[in-house]
Each structure stands twice: as structure tokens, then as C-alpha cells.
């Protein structure tokens, strides 16, 4: 485990703000889904906010990420506009993908988010390719791939990490171990305790970090990003975490007991934890944090209202949107 470092007020508040935004975004999406305004599927990132926040705080706008089906958090942490995100979920013309993508496919290429991905493990090679671009063009950009514990058993994980290692690419592989891949608990999916051990097999450093603690994630990712940016190659970061909700909205969670859920949820709440240490370290007051919370609540309301006012995505000429050149 990488230990957390002391953090200044600005960073602490930034991290807190991102985490709170993600949590509030997820709460509102769930609500909208419950109201039948969003359809398809959504996967809540609640409980895992520290990972996206801690990692992306180390990134520039021109660094790249690839994200997952559980992608709202990564998108927000990389700087997305909430209104355009809601608009996407609501199938509006103003959505990031003009209603073509939905929750599982939001990209925000202007901010370096190359996209969520409905294919488990599908983003890992893509981030690897982005890192190749940086290396090839001699920039100091970094590519980060977020993926779950489940994705670590996909062939794409294996092939990509090896490519990045032999080519010393500026890539960071962030495995969000939220204990489950749908209904399959990690202990039934791995015969090895620490997923980070797999890094040894590729000849890259593997770091295991407490994904609840945004300071620890921030520090570990900071090291990995610096390593990548300075040409020292890729890193695998495994962050332990827990998803508060079911795998998807409506998951009956037959594979978990109520005790387990309640216990873990209490134990794994990076947002509550952040509040605690921020106060304990006197980096901000209760009132400061309440203000952050309120501002975010207002921002979310505005974003939803903006999205709901927008016209539905236009179905005209969909076939013309398939190719860039005709």
C-alpha cells in the first residue's frame, strides 16, 4: 500500500468537490432512472469516487483516459460538463453523443476522455494506443485506463499491459477492485490475493492502494503518472473499493447479504472519510464543505433543467453519422 501524503487545502477541496459531484450526479441519475426519464442501463459509481478523483487530479486536459460502463465518475473527474452528461442520459441533441451513446458511451474528447465502454476490458488497448501516440509524437501526454477487477481477467488486459511494458509507454492502468464483477465476487474470480501481483509478470511496477482514501489514490497515481510522463514506463495501480449500489440500477443483489452490503457501505465511503480527514486536518470547516455541497446541488439542478429543456436527439440522417468521410 502506498501511504497517503499530506495534502493542501486547495487540493483537498478540489478532491472533495469532484467526489461530491460524482456522488450527487449518481444520486440524481438513479432518481431520473426511477422516474423513467432515463432508459437502458446505468451503473452507479457511488462508493468509488476516490479513485476517479484521486487519479484525474494528476492529469491535464490533454492527457487521455479510457473509461468503463461505470463511467460517470471518470467523466466528471476529467472535467465534463454536467448538463451535457444529463442531456446524453436523457437522449437530447445537446448530449455529449447526441443521444446516440447513453450512459455506457459518454466520451468527452475535448477533455481527453476517449469514452466509456460497454465492453469489459474494451478500453484497455485503446488507452495503450493513446500512450503510443504520445510516445510516437514525442509529447509528454499520459494515457490512463480505468477498468474493473472483472476486466483484469480479460485477454485485453494481458495483451495491453505487455505491449505497454515492452514499449515503455506512458500509460497507467487503474484497476478498480470493487469486489465484484456483476454477481461474481473477486475471491471466486482470482486464485491470487493481490491483483497488483500480475504486474510482475509484465515487468512493470504494480501498486496496491486503498481506494477508499483519496489521498492514497492521489499519491499513488501521482507517482505512476509522473513515471509515465517522464518516460519511465507504465504502472499498474490496483485500488480496493466497493460499489454502494447494485451492479446496475434495479439489480436485486441476490448474490449479497444485507449485512454485507450495510457493513461494507459503512466501511467504504470515501466521501464521508474525506469529510472526516479534511475536518481533522483543519483544511476546511464544516460550513465550507456544506457550501461546496450546496453549490453542487444547485449545479446539478441547473444541469438537469438545462438538459430537460433541450430538444430530443434528431433521428434525421442517422446513417450519415456513421462515417467521417463519404
Amino acid at each position, binding site marked *: 500500500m502506498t501511504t497517503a501524503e499530506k495534502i493542501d487545502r486547495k487540493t483537498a477541496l478540489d478532491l472533495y468537490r469532484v467526489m461530491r459531484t460524482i456522488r450527487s450526479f449518481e444520486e440524481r441519475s438513479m432518481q431520473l432512472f426511477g422516474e423513467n426519464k432515463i432508459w*437502458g442501463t446505468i451503473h452507479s459509481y457511488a462508493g468509488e469516487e476516490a479513485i476517479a478523483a484521486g487519479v484525474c487530479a494528476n492529469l491535464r486536459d490533454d492527457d487521455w483516459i479510457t473509461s468503463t460502463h461505470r463511467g460517470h465518475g471518470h467523466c466528471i473527474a476529467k472535467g465534463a460538463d454536467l448538463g451535457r452528461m444529463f442531456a446524453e442520459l436523457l*437522449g437530447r441533441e445537446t448530449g455529449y453523443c447526441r443521444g*446516440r451513446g*447513453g450512459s455506457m458511451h459518454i466520451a468527452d474528447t475535448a477533455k481527453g476522455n476517449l469514452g466509456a465502454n*460497454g*465492453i*469489459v476490458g474494451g478500453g484497455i488497448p485503446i488507452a495503450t494506443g493513446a500512450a503510443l501516440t504520445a510516445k510516437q509524437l514525442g509529447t509528454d501526454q499520459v494515457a490512463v485506463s480505468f477498468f474493473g477487477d472483472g*476486466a483484469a481477467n*480479460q485477454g485485453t488486459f494481458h495483451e495491453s499491459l505487455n505491449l505497454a511494458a515492452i514499449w515503455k509507454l506512458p500509460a497507467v492502468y487503474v484497476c478498480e477492485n470493487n469486489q465484484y464483477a456483476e454477481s461474481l465476487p473477486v475471491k471466486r474470480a482470482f486464485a491470487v490475493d493481490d491483483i497488483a501481483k500480475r504486474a510482475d509478470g509484465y515487468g512493470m511496477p504494480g501498486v496496491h492502494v486503498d481506494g477508499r482514501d483519496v489521498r492514497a489514490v492521489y499519491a499513488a497515481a501521482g507517482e505512476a503518472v509522473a513515471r509515465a510522463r517522464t518516460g519511465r514506463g507504465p504502472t499498474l495501480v490496483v485500488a480496493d473499493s466497493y460499489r454502494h449500489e447494485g451492479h446496475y440500477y434495479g439489480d436485486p443483489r441476490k448474490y449479497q447479504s444485507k449485512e454485507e452490503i450495510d457493513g461494507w457501505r459503512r466501511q467504504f465511503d470515501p466521501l464521508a472519510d474525506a469529510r472526516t480527514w479534511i475536518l481533522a486536518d483543519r483544511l476546511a470547516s464544516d460550513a465550507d464543505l456544506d457550501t461546496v455541497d450546496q453549490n453542487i446541488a444547485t449545479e446539478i439542478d441547473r444541469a438537469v433543467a438545462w438538459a430537460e429543456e433541450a430538444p430530443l*436527439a434528431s433521428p434525421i440522417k442517422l446513417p450519415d453519422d456513421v462515417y467521417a468521410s463519404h
Partner: protein
Amino acid sequence: MQATEARAPAATRELFYNEALNEALRLEMERDQRVIVIGEDIAEHGGAFQVTAGLLDRFGPTRIRQTPISEIGIVGAAVGAALTGLRPVVELMYVDFAGLAMDQIVNQAAQNRFMFGGQARVPMVLRTQGGSGRGNAAQHSKSLEAWFAHVAGLKLVMPSTPADAKGLLASSIRDDDPVIFLEHKLLYRTKGAVPEGEHLVPLGKAEVKREGRDLTIVTWSREVLFALDASAQLASDGIEAEVVDVRTLVPLDKDLILASVRKTHRVLVVHEAIRRGGYGAEVAAMITEEAFDDLDAPPRRLAGLETPIPYAQHLEKSVVPQVDDIVRVAKELVV
């Protein structure tokens, strides 16, 4: 394989399509110890579409073998298991993930028997589901039957009703070749009468789901339901459409399709998959080759637009054939 259709009809009950599949799995697993189910999320959760619900309790975790997310590993393990004495049924959660496992499906499962001169057989079923209609967007909504149809060595089944689902799954499990069994996500919660107990529908037999004299609609999977709805509307305008449910795309029941076309002289082929290179092209080309002189008009195809499936509900509907589209094109064809 023997059809039971000739025997005295069994008692039936109304079941959902996914319940009918579940029953087929249960019965075949009871009948034959070598049948195992292997896939993601199929144990406690009962499968993404509840097709394996309750089977874990009945058969335990070794026969209901839940796997990590490793599509090519899983399909390949099923190939190896099938070669050595088991009869695995793989559940691939979405047909869209087939691109991860296509090598084992094609280069290994489908080709094994031929390539090794007939030494082995590969009795496995790959069950999966496709189609749009639930807002799952481009990576969870495709219809890929044309890929499988174009592979020598696979059989390909796409049932549209609960009874066919049960009867064709049982036949597929008993078949000695690799069978791709494609369900549709919007069929799972459709209901129909399903025979109790053993019920086998033979592979390779299409069915006339509605008789008519004015045109033949050849289709499969969810579009069969759309075609039946459309036919009802057409009937009220005096147009009697015959609806042929292909059921088994490979082997294809050419005789039944051609017999219908020879009766109606007009044919509309409907499917949800994108039109370019869809299996509808094969069906249409086959009909033209075999029944050119019986045709009063060229076979028409109605199929998905050439786009990935978009997310928003109204967009999604706009790219795959709906009931109204069938009615419209059928009228154009008959006029």
C-alpha cells in the same frame, strides 16, 4: 433427431420465453449428466435474462459453472469440454461480445470436425441474445446472425416463440454439432403455450406462423411477432400475408420457403440486423435463384439501417423495422 410434433400433443401451459428456455435446460440437465452450463452471472443471479434462474440450487456450482469475464477462455473451454465428453451450453451474455470469442467459435468449434478428418465431434451450444429495443446502445444491441451463417460448421437457431425456444434448445443440446442459439432480449418476457415435458422441435424446419395467399413474409426472431402484428393490420385491408418463421437459419428450410413463395408469388424478407450483408440477402438471393419464374415482383428486403444501434428510444426505433414499416412495404409489394 426426431420431431415429437407427429405424436399426440402434450399438455401445454403459458410460459414466458425465458421460462421455456429454463425448462429446456433443466430437463436436458436432468436427462444427461454431461450437460453443463457455463457463463457469466449465471449462478446466484440466474443469468442477465433469468434463463438459468434456479438452476444453481438444483444442479450445484459445478454444473452451473459461473465464470470470470473471459469470453474467449470460456468458449474455448467449452470446445475442449465438448471434445472430451461433456455437452456444454455456454451463455454469452450479449451476442455483441462474440467478437471476443469468434476465433474459438469459428477456427476451433466449427472447423474441428472437418479439419481433423472427422475424428471428433463438438456437441456444444452457444446461447446468446441480441437485438435492440432496450436502450442498451451500440455495443449491446446488435444482430449478428449473418456472421455465424457464413461459417461452415455451425448450425444457427433463432426461435421466436416460447414453445420453439424450448423445443429448439432441447434439440440443439442433443445435436452433435456446435449450435449457435440466438435469443432476442425483447422476447424473454413474451408469453406463449409451451408443451410440458419432453418437447423437441427439429433443427432445419421452418414454420408457417400464419397462412396467407397474397405475399410471403419470411422472417425470424422478434420480427416474427412484428410480422404477425403487421399481417393482422394488412388483413383488415384485405391483404393476406403468409408469415414464414425461419426458426433455423442453418440448415435453412428452403422447401418450405419456396413452397410459400410459389403460392404467393411475392416475398418480403424482414430482419432486424443491418441490411447490407444481412442474412436476408441470402434468403432473397436463394429465392430468386430457385423460383425466379414464380415471382411477380423482386423479393424485397426490409432490414435495419446501416448504423450502429443508437441509445435513445426514439432513435433506436427509427433504425430497425417496426410493425408499420412492414405494413407499408408489404402494401407497396402487393400493389
